């Protein structure tokens, strides 16, 4: 239904203040997932934590790694120099850029430290679910 509360939840979770008002007022956080909308159709898209992540294959600095235990594809912003090769490589369009003087790439990290990712928790419709069978990923219950 495209209420975009998942985007809000994601932004707050990945902000310094972790508070909806403070985060939005004092920072310019970016959401690592995106709700796409066209007419009656809408869905949320985010990193699939691929088996064979093209973003990681292409990362020129080694900032992107795939955790062999959890399967999560992580992006180390400290190492990132913002060349955007990963954005070109990702067929899902699931990597974005942070705001600020030294922008870096940013993507879904499955919210480390949380039992349920912020986007899933924020979804009033329970349309987003956590899938853990093969690759970890947040997925739509009923992909449009």
């Amino acid at each position: 239904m495209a209420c975009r509360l998942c985007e809000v939840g994601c932004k707050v979770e990945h902000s310094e203040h972790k508070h909806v008002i403070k985060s939005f007022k004092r920072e310019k956080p970016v959401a690592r997932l995106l709700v796409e909308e066209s007419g009656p159709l809408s869905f949320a898209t985010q990193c699939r934590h691929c088996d064979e992540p093209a973003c990681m294959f292409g990362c020129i600095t080694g900032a992107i790694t795939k955790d062999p235990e959890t399967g999560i594809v992580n992006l180390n912003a400290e190492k990132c120099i913002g060349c955007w090769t990963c954005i070109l490589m990702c067929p899902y369009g699931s990597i974005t850029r942070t705001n600020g003087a030294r922008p870096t790439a940013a993507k879904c990290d499955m919210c480390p430290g949380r039992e349920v990712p912020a986007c899933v928790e924020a979804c009033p419709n329970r349309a987003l679910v956590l899938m853990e069978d093969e690759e970890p990923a947040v997925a739509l219950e009923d992909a449009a």
Partner: protein
Amino acid sequence: MKTFTYAIIGNSVAAIGAIEAIRSVDRTGSIGLFSDEPHHVYSRPLITHYLAGEVSEEKMLYRPPDFYERYGVQAFLGAQVESVEFENRRLQTAGGESAFEKLLISVGGRPIVPKIAGGDLRGVFTMNTWDDAREMKSYLPAVRSAMVLGGGLTGLKTAEALVEAGVRVTVVELAERVLSMLLDRRSAEVVVKQFENQGTRILTGTTISEIRGGECVESASLSDGSTAECQMVVLAIGVTPRLDLVQDTPVRTNRGIFVDRRMETSVPGVFAAGDVAEAYDALLDQNRVLPVLPNAYAGGRVAGLNMAGGERTYDLGASVNSTTFFGYPVVSAGSSAIEEGAEIIEGDDENGYRRFIIQDDRLTGFVMTGEVNRAGIVLDLVRERIPLNGLKDRLLDGIGLIDLPEEIRHKKLRGGTCCHEKH
């Protein structure tokens, strides 16, 4: 003499792709890694950022310091392989001889050094290794202005770094435009503008005819007759595959080492990947030398999986480039440089310049500058040869998954692996 299940020559991106792939299926086979450079594996594209002083020693590393240990790799750093006996499966370094069962040649390219009078003066550099960047960096205190010969990616990234280090830079390019392999005239102008905004001159259609000075570089003369004072000249006219190890051997070469879709050379059990290889370009459906990092990793990975007994084909090979100039993003892919013989859609607004090349209702290449988010969805249209139909009119606004044909969209929304990796 030590025998390795897997020997790898060259310690860079393709080598790492292979090692990570081998270890995903074979935890015990021995791996010997031979490198003439003495360093732990580092990111080659970062050398210009190192020169500019933006990246620390530690952040130069492409993989963590304990990588070789964790992956069970015996690394011989500073050990150049002098020769390979392909029939006997042996290789020689100054330190001795090793035997191997499977071999990966991932020795990359070497800079082409043009013959120019004065090319041996102090202050003339090439830019291909971390040590090149270190030497240039320590020479910088003597440099007020520099001339960079070559307006390709290496030349322009080096020019950018020198500007950031406070040097006055002139770029000299023989072709009629910069980045002529990647960009058409209009997009090349967008790049030139970023340099001009910094007060950097880019001269096209000319070259350096002579470098002058006593012991050190003092000036350079151009083929147009002009002379400019400078204390540094960087030669960056291109790289060529390092073929010395395979010259006069059964390994088939053309412009690079010719490999099949499995990344195997004409000698069974001997593989090649990265900048040295002439491998399959999935967009053009023919073999080509495509010296960019994503291809080196993906090709090395396919080689590694096959060396470890798998059956994989390389289908990620493509002309793909993404970089920034003074923070301004420039992305190109596929047939991005062509000027005619195709339908071209272009747009130029506050979000940047965009150009889409369409042949037979399929997107075959594109350039995006400025706003580049979701460029990967566009690249996938090229890779998957998706008929554009109505999509054509939407290209300039930015394509989302929602715009894709239903069947493809479904696959993508459900998919858990990168969709073009076919299993």
